[in-house]
C-alpha cells in the first residue's frame, strides 16, 4: 500500500513537472515577438433553420460568437539603434473590450515599432482609486481611461496634459461638436472621448405590438402608451411595466436617467456658474413627477430582458447583453423622447487622457496613438467587438446599414453631458441620487425631494 502511495506521488510529481515545463514553454512563447491571436466576442446575425409552427424555416438570429482575431502583421520593423518610447495605458475590466483594446495596441505597435504600449486594466470599482493613488504616488500610467465626472478634479490638480493642436484640429474636423465641448475645461481640451453612454429608449416590439401601441416620440406619448402597457393582476400585483428606469443611485444611474427628463422639461442641475443648485424649480417638479410614474422601484433590474417591461433606457452595448440573456427578444432603439422644452438625452462620457507627469516623448507618442485609436475604423472595431457607439461625424461604411447603430448615431445630436464640470460632482451626484431613492420609494413627495436634495447640493457647493 505504502509502495503504491509512493508510486502515485512520484507520478503526480512527474506529471506536475511535465505540466510546469509545458506552461513555461508556453509562457516563453507568449513573450516572443509574434503577435498573439486574441479571442474577441462579436454580435452577429446568423441564419439558422428552425421549426416554426411545424415547418422548417430559415430565420435570422442575433448571437454572440467568439472569434480569434490575429493582429495585423508587423508592417514596419524597428531600426537598429532606434529609441523605443514606452507608454502605459490603463483602463477598467470588461473582458471583450480589454481583448479588443489590447489587440488594437498590438496592431499599433506593429505599425510603429518605436512605440511600446503596455496595456493594463483594473476592476471598474477600483479604477478611480487606482488612478488617484498612482497620480499621488507620482507613477501614473501615460494614458488613462477616465470617467467624465472625475475630470474636473484631475484638471484642477494639474494632473492631465492639455491636448496638442493636432488633436484639437482632429476633434474640430471629425467629431460632433458635443465631443469637444465635453472634453473642454476652463477653455482647454483634455482628451478624446473614449465612448459616450447615451441611454436611448429601447422598446420590446412584441409587447408594443400586442397592445397595438405605436413607439412613442415624446414623454406625453409615452405616458399615454403606458396607460395600456402598465398591467396589474386582479390582486393588484404587477404583471407588466410600461417603462422601467433606474431607481438606485448605484453607478449614478437614477441621476443619469432623471437628467434626460429634467433637461427635456427645461431644467438643469446647477446654475451656469456652478455656484448653486437649479433643479428645485417648476421644470424639476414636472420632471420628478413624470420620472416617478416611469421608474418603478418594485421592478427587478432586468425586467426588460425578462419580458416584463415594455421599455428601458440603455446604451448601444446592450445589444450584446440581449443576445446572450434573451436571444428571442425583439427590440428596437428609439430617438430620445421630446419634452415640452427640448429633446435631450442626459449622457455620460468616458475620455482617453494623457497624464501630465509623463515625459514629453511619452506624451507625444500617447497623443499620436490616441489619434489613431479614435479614427472611424478603430471605433468601428469597438462597435463590432463590444457595441460601443462610433462617435465620429461619419458613421463607418459597414455600419451605415445597421439600424441599431444608426439610431444611436442620430441620437448623438440630442446628447448632453448629464453632470456639471465641478470637482465636487461626485458628492453632488450622491446627494441627488440619495434623495431620489426616497422619492421613488414614495417616502417623500416631489417637493421635499427637490428641496432636500437642493439644500444638500448647495451646502456642498458652499463648502467647496
Amino acid at each position, binding site marked *: 500500500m505504502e509502495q503504491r502511495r509512493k508510486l502515485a506521488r512520484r507520478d503526480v510529481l512527474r506529471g506536475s513537472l511535465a505540466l510546469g515545463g509545458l506552461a513555461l514553454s508556453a509562457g516563453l512563447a507568449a513573450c516572443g515577438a509574434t503577435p498573439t491571436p486574441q479571442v474577441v466576442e462579436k454580435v452577429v446575425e446568423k441564419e439558422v433553420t428552425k421549426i416554426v409552427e411545424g415547418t422548417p424555416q430559415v430565420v435570422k438570429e442575433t448571437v454572440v460568437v467568439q472569434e480569434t482575431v490575429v493582429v495585423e502583421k508587423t508592417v514596419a520593423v524597428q531600426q537598429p539603434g532606434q529609441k523605443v518610447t514606452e507608454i502605459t495605458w490603463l483602463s477598467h475590466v470588461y473582458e471583450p473590450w480589454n481583448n479588443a483594446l489590447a489587440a488594437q495596441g498590438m496592431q499599433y505597435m506593429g505599425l510603429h515599432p518605436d512605440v511600446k504600449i503596455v496595456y493594463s486594466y483594473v476592476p471598474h470599482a477600483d479604477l478611480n482609486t487606482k488612478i488617484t493613488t498612482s497620480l499621488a504616488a507620482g507613477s501614473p500610467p501615460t494614458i488613462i481611461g477616465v470617467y467624465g465626472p472625475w475630470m474636473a*478634479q484631475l484638471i484642477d490638480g494639474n494632473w492631465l496634459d492639455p491636448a496638442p493642436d493636432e488633436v484639437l484640429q482632429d476633434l474640430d474636423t471629425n467629431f460632433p461638436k458635443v465631443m469637444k465641448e465635453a472634453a473642454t475645461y476652463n477653455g482647454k481640451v483634455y482628451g478624446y472621448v473614449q465612448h459616450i453612454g447615451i441611454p436611448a429608449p429601447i422598446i420590446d416590439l412584441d409587447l408594443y405590438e400586442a397592445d397595438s401601441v405605436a413607439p412613442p416620440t415624446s414623454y406625453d406619448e409615452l405616458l399615454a402608451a403606458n396607460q395600456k402597457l402598465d398591467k396589474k393582476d386582479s390582486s393588484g400585483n404587477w404583471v407588466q411595466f410600461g417603462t422601467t428606469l433606474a431607481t438606485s443611485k448605484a453607478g449614478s444611474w437614477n441621476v443619469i436617467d432623471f437628467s434626460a427628463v429634467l433637461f427635456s422639461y427645461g431644467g438643469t442641475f446647477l446654475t451656469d456658474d456652478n455656484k448653486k443648485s437649479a433643479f428645485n424649480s417648476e421644470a424639476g417638479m414636472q420632471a420628478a413627477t413624470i420620472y416617478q410614474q416611469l421608474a418603478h422601484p418594485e421592478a427587478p433590474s432586468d425586467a426588460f430582458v425578462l419580458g416584463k417591461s415594455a421599455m428601458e433606457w440603455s446604451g448601444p452595448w446592450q445589444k450584446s447583453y440581449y443576445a446572450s440573456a434573451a436571444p428571442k427578444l425583439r427590440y428596437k432603439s428609439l430617438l430620445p423622447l421630446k419634452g415640452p422644452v427640448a429633446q435631450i438625452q442626459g449622457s455620460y462620457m468616458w475620455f482617453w487622457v494623457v497624464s501630465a507627469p509623463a515625459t514629453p516623448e511619452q506624451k507625444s507618442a500617447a497623443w499620436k496613438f490616441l489619434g489613431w485609436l479614435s479614427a472611424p475604423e478603430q471605433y468601428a472595431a469597438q462597435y463590432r467587438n463590444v457595441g460601443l457607439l462610433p462617435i465620429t461625424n461619419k458613421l463607418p461604411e459597414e455600419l451605415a446599414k445597421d439600424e441599431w447603430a444608426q439610431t444611436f448615431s442620430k441620437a448623438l445630436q440630442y446628447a448632453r453631458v448629464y453632470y456639471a464640470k465641478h470637482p465636487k460632482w461626485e458628492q453632488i451626484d450622491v446627494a441627488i441620487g440619495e434623495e431620489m431613492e*426616497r422619492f421613488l420609494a414614495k417616502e417623500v413627495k416631489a417637493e421635499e425631494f427637490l428641496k432636500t436634495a437642493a439644500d444638500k447640493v448647495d451646502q456642498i457647493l458652499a463648502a467647496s
Partner: protein
Amino acid sequence: MGIARAHQMSVRFLSTTRAKRLLFIWGSLTPIMLYFLIFSVLPIFAALYISLHKWPLLGRAKPFVGLDNYISVINDPRFWISLKNTLYYAAAYMFLVIILGLAMALLVSSLHPTARSVFRPLFFAPQVTSAVAVALMFSWLYQPQWGVLNYLLRFIGLGPFMWLQSSKQVMPAIIITGVWEAVGYSMVIYTAGLTNIPTDLKEAGAVDGATSGQVFWHIVLPLLQPTTLFMFVTSMIGGLQVFTEVWLMSGGGPGTASRVLVLEIYDQGFRYFEMGRASSIAFYLFLLIAVIAYLQIRYLREQFEF
C-alpha cells in the same frame, strides 16, 4: 587571539540548548512581528498622522489642521446617521447571532450523532460562503415584485414589502442577511462550549429533581458564560464593522437609511479621496469598538464570575 576566543565562545553558546531555543523563537517570531509592524502598527500611526492633516489625495498641499477633521465630522449629520445605523445593526446582529447560535447548538447537540454530522456542516455552510454571493442572493430574495420572500408572505396575507427599497425595512433586511451568514459560526462556538460542560453536573441536577429547563437555566447557561462573553465581544465588533452587505445590497440607501460608518469611511477615502476625514472617522470607529469591547468585558466578566 581575542577574535578567535570570541568566535569559540559564540560557537559554544550557540550549541547550547537555550541558545537553540532562543534562535528558534526569534527566527519564528521575527517574520510575523515584522509583518504585523509594517502592515498593522505603522498604518495605525500613519492614519493618526493623516487624520490631523487636510489630506486630499489629489492635492499637492497637505497642511496640518489639528483636530479640524474630527470636529467637522461630528458636525456632519451623515456621521450621526451612520453611527445610529451602525449601532442599530451591531446590537441587533449581536443578540440574534448569540440567541440563534445557542438555540441551534442546543438543537444540534440533542440530535443523533448521524443527524448531527449532517446538520452541523449545513448550518455552518453560510459562514464559508462568499459574503458577496450571499448579499446578491438575498437581494433577489428581497425583490419586491418577484422575490421568493414576498411570494411566500403573500400566502399568509402579508406584504408585499419593499424591503431594500424601503427606509424602514432596509436595516432589518440587511440584519437578517448578516445573521444568516454568522449564526453557523456562533453555533459551532456554542457547541464547543456545550461539549466542555461535564455531564455529571447535569446528571446531578436531574437526580436532584431539576427539570430540563432548570438544568439549562441554572447549570448549562452559567457554565456557558465564558463562551457567551467571547460571542458578545466578537459579534459586536463584527457588527460594528459591517460593510459588504450594505455596500452590495443597498449602497447605504434608500437615501441614507442604511448608511454605516465603514461605508462612510470608504466614501470619504476612496470616492471623495479626503483621507484626513476618512482617517478621523476610522478613529471614531476604533474608539467606539474599544470602549464597547472594554465595557462588555469588564461588566460581563463581573457578572459571569461564579
